[in-house]
């Protein structure tokens, strides 16, 4: 078991945010944590990342208790996580300070190519689109070769077309790099498109309502009956009729 949440609860003062979360994530799995706004899913991810200490319970990775942030597990924020004062190269190489110059350059070049930013190495984030900034952040995370990636609504600020492209790029990268990924989203379609399993959280205090296995091979056909059935199942689980 790669990442294990064991009875994780969290309260801020009198407000219960998470209640006894139990979840096991296997190595190389892509798990989406889905829930309505304010259900504590970001808090859960921050606990896994070591940025927050849970009020009760613990998260273990490879059997070791998480006690703080660690460069083997990188957190990807929305695109505002890139450093505006560093170029694309500088951002991607940010965590590579302990490598030799040659290794560092090679690693940067590899990840610049992987996320499709060739030609933009010397650009500053303000010269890039939202989607490109998000790629920079993903590349910065991958460059230090972590074994877990935490993505907190990474595509939430992008337009819907870019968001679709970024999803398929993430899947391509995931298949190339074989990382364990925990992906927080409030977008049902997104979770069904990406995940091996979707963990559906309840409204606050967040509890695991259900875990839905998405048994469709990639690339997924978004109009296949199985896709639609799983999607509607989750819509139902969250208590939304799929009608407007």
């Amino acid at each position, binding site marked *: 078991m790669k990442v294990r949440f064991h009875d994780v609860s969290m309260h801020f003062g009198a407000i219960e945010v998470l209640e006894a979360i139990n979840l096991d994530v296997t190595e190389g799995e892509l798990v989406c944590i889905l829930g309505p706004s304010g259900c504590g899913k970001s808090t859960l991810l921050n606990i896994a*990342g070591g*940025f927050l200490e849970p009020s009760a319970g613990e998260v273990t990775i490879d059997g070791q208790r998480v006690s*703080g*942030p*660690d*460069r083997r597990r*990188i*957190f990807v*924020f929305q695109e*505002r*996580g890139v*450093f505006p*004062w*560093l170029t694309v190269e500088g951002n991607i190489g*940010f*965590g590579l*300070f302990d490598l030799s110059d040659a290794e560092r350059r090679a690693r940067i070049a590899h990840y610049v190519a992987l996320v499709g930013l060739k030609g933009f190495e010397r650009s500053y984030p303000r010269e890039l689109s939202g989607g490109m900034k998000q790629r920079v952040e993903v590349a910065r995370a991958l460059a*230090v070769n972590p074994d877990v990636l935490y993505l907190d609504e990474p595509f939430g600020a992008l337009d819907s077309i870019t968001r679709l492209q970024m999803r398929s790029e993430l899947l391509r990268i995931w298949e190339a790099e074989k990382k364990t990924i925990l992906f927080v989203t409030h977008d049902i379609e997104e979770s069904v498109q990406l995940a091996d399993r979707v963990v559906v959280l309840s409204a606050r205090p967040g509890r695991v309502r259900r875990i839905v296995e998405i048994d469709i091979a990639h690339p997924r056909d978004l109009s296949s009956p199985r896709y639609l059935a799983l999607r509607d199942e989750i819509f139902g689980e969250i208590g939304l009729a799929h009608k407007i």
Partner: protein
Amino acid sequence: MSKLLPFTGIALALAAWHFAAAAHPASLLPGPLMVARAIGELASRGLLLKYVVASLFRVTWGYLGALLLAVPAGMALGLSRRGEMALNPLLQLLRPISPLAWIPVAILWFGVGDLSAVFLIFIASFLPLTLATMKAVHDIDPVHLSAARNFDLPPHRLLRQVLLPAILPQLLVGMRITVGIAWLVVVAAEMIAVNSGLGFLIIDARNAGNRYDLVIAGMVLIGLIGVALDLLVRRAEQRIAA
């Protein structure tokens, strides 16, 4: 045409000043031509350069000394909640005290001379620079600090690659405002604590024979150099921000 527009106000004021002074010769106020002649006189006696350099010298050392101490102090307070809780009330208490109120203390400690004036500039610059740095640290996007923690950056890299570049834009604004304050204070300090500089020129010209043409010459020079200092720091600001 639009290149001349910024000078319109100045030209109008000069004209009004000229005619007002000419219409009331009995008043002691000299017209702009007399003031220009006074500046020429200062230049020919070698005092123009000497006084300007003296004033700039004091501002430079007082200001740089303050900057050197205020940036680390402001960063430490900005990063440490406890430090801020312990020291911020003291800073707030010192803030409303005009730097000029320190003049007697400066003379007591450093006597009449350059050191007193430099000390006063230091006092005037240190607080605003410390507070500006502290505020800039508070305004760092927490996401950037989290990312730095996540990558396990060693402290010197955290400082160089995250903290300093993150606070720089706001710090530069604080630095520009503070240069203005330092320049205001040097003139006052020189009226009391030293025997050279533009502030001394003003007070000395009045005391030694009511030479109001020299008084106003001193004021004009202070204005011109103040504008030049501001432009200089603005230029640096733009270069760094680009």
